[in-house]
């Protein structure tokens, strides 16, 4: 047996369901510009029907839940691409800064090498001339300065990258702390049987941020999730977060520790991965190449310099002069045997231009040794290459590394943009859609209200029947 009361209840369920649905729409409209917000959709379900005397009667509608629409696979793709983006971005900015040292100018190392050998060619044409000799010392000084400047710039960059590593680790710790907190909130809200949509939105947003910093893997479980780095080091497990720490090693290089374990070498992606790659591989690689060039050049020049005679006819390679012991007369102060620090420490050893060994026979006018010095220009004195060839190799290396990183960055930016597009297509709020929904729910609400009013009229009719 159906009753008017039952109909009234059905109409009421319509009213409250539409009201709830309207709330979802309103929330969507309000959050149209909120970053990371996923649109909400009301989930309306038919109430279980009553079967009375063989008749199946509907019992109205209820708003089961308000669901946030998102695609977990897309989310994880975005997180991964964000890691690549962060890594390439950090690398590009480090290498772009480094390659300025190798950009051709009036004082770059390549020009300084040419000028140095040119001054020796000039000396060869006029070996006894003091101003020409002074020209060689000046050019040697400029060469040393060019090496010093480039090497010091790289060192400065190295230490600022080192500081960035520590800062990035701090940021990671803050984010993992916040994510652990959100995990706890989401679990408690969800266990109360409520949707935790907006909290999940916030957490997704934070995981995106974290992905740009370090390589994270997300392992979701009911309402909560576990975050680890690529090699499995736990960052967040449910409501607990595990902070990373940094500690300088003996050379002052910040090492990253997780629960007492050094994990520096396992971090390859995200901004932190990019910073580590620049700090531990690219910049030291360039420093090492500069040192090799500086040391090779200085040693080769010194060897020839100590096989001749100075302007006064004294042998520059001799270890005694007039019976008194003396040191050999070098042109450049000898670089360290380990090569490390050769570029930053390169300096000219003599101030008296007369001490340059241009002569090969002790007479002032002889240029035999100057010619031998000049010949170094074309000899494979640095790892089998001439100084200029070796230097051009460095230029090409740093250029390639920068160009590759920046190509990777653009490619990953394009992919990321497309993924974000797809995410917006799934989760973004469309005002058109919300306007249509608003109208839809408004009309349904109005219709349910009309039904109630009609039932009311019918009730009145029934009541009037009795009283008449």
């Amino acid at each position: 047996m159906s009753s008017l009361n039952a109909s009234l209840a059905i109409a009421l369920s319509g009213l409250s369901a539409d009201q709830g649905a309207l709330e979802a729409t309103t929330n969507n409209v309000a959050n149209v510009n909120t970053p990371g917000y996923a649109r909400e959709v009301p989930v309306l379900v038919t109430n279980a029907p009553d079967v009375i005397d063989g008749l199946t009667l509907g019992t109205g509608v209820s708003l089961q839940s308000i669901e946030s629409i998102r695609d977990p696979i897309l989310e994880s793709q975005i997180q991964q691409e964000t890691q690549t983006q962060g890594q390439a971005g950090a690398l590009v900015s480090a290498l772009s800064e480094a390659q300025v040292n190798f950009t051709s100018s009036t004082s770059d190392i390549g020009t300084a090498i040419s000028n140095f050998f040119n001054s020796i060619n000039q000396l060869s044409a006029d070996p006894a001339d003091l101003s020409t000799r002074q020209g060689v010392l000046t050019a040697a000084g400029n060469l040393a300065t060019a090496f010093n400047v480039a090497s010091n710039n790289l060192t400065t960059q190295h230490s600022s990258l080192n500081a960035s590593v520590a800062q990035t680790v701090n940021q990671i710790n803050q984010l993992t702390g916040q994510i652990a907190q959100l995990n706890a909130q989401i679990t408690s809200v969800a266990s109360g049987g409520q949707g935790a949509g907006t909290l999940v939105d916030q957490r997704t947003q934070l995981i995106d941020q974290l992905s740009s910093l370090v390589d994270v893997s997300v392992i979701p479980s009911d309402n909560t999730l576990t975050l680890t780095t690529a090699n499995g080091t736990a960052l967040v497990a449910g409501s607990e977060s595990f902070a990373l720490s940094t500690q300088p090693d003996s050379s002052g290089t910040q090492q990253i520790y997780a629960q007492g374990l050094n994990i520096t070498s396992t971090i390859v992606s995200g901004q932190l991965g990019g910073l580590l790659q620049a700090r531990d591989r690219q910049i030291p690689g360039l420093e090492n190449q500069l040192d090799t060039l500086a040391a090779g050049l200085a040693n080769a020049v010194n060897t020839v310099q100590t096989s001749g005679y100075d302007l006064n006819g004294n042998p520059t390679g001799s270890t005694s002069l007039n019976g008194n012991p003396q040191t050999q007369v070098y042109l450049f102060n000898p670089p360290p045997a380990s090569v490390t620090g050769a570029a930053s420490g390169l300096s000219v050893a003599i101030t008296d231009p007369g001490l340059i060994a241009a002569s090969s026979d002790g007479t002032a006018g002889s240029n035999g040794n100057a010619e031998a010095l000049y010949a170094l220009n074309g000899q494979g004195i640095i790892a089998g290459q001439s100084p200029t060839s070796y230097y051009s190799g460095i230029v090409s290396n740093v250029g390639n590394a920068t160009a590759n990183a920046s190509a990777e960055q653009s490619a990953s930016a394009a992919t990321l943009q497309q993924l974000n597009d797809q995410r917006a297509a799934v989760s973004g709020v469309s005002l058109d859609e919300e306007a249509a929904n608003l109208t839809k729910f408004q009309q349904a609400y109005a219709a349910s209200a009309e039904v109630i009013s009609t039932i009311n009229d019918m009730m009145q009719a029934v009541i009037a029947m009795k009283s008449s």
Partner: protein
Amino acid sequence: MRVNPNPLPDLLAALGNNQQLINTDTQELASGLRINVPSDNPAGAAELVQNAAQTSTDDQFLRSIGSIQAELQTSDSALNSVTTLLQRAITLGTEGSSSTVNASDRLALAAEAQGIQSQLVGLANLSYQGKYVFAGTATEAPPYALSAASPSGVTYAGNSGVNSVTVGEGFSVQTNLPGSELFSNPSNDVFQAVEDLITNLQSGDVAGISVAVGEVTSASSYIDAQRVFYGNTLNQLGAQQTFLNSATTQLAQQENTIGGADLPAVITNLESAQVSRQATLEALAQTQQTNLFNYIK
């Protein structure tokens, strides 16, 4: 399929890309260079380093050639004067060997020959920019001095050293002839010949004078023959100069091909980037001005 309801980030990214293109083109236009940092074209940047080094080396070779040429020309013209003086000495000797001149005339001729001898010493002590060019590599002091004690009438303080200077890839030229080879060559000793002439003129030995005239004649043609060295070297340097000049031009062209901005292309790119930026801006202005809310009342 649901479409992305908010294309704004895409449009902003497109604007960013456009701006990047415009910046790159503007930088190329401003510098006139296609390679401003190594990453613009790593292989090209490395080539440019080599190219710049080669250009600078060639420029230096040209400068060295210039200074060597000046020195060689000065030396050569001094040798020209030497042969002129030797010709005069031959004339004096021929006159002195004649039976028509008397002893006092011969003494006068001998006096003139002594003058020639000291002029020759002056020429052999030629200094160019402070260096004595006929002293071998002992260029700091005048190599010749008159000396009555020496059989040849002079002493040589120079050495037999020669210098070679590199003026091209694997190409060097000898830049001096030492006095020991030029003037004091044992088989053609200029000073010995002149000294013999003077001695014989003074002693009035007619036969001796004739022999001495022969020696001076032979010395004079020897000097002439040595001047071929200067002529040859100057020719080689001239040819090398021509080569280096054309090499430098070629290097400059190459540099422009590798690293120079292709101006028409850059300007076209810049214009199209600007048009595209304009279009994106228009699109931005058009989007999302209205939505369904504007129509539902």
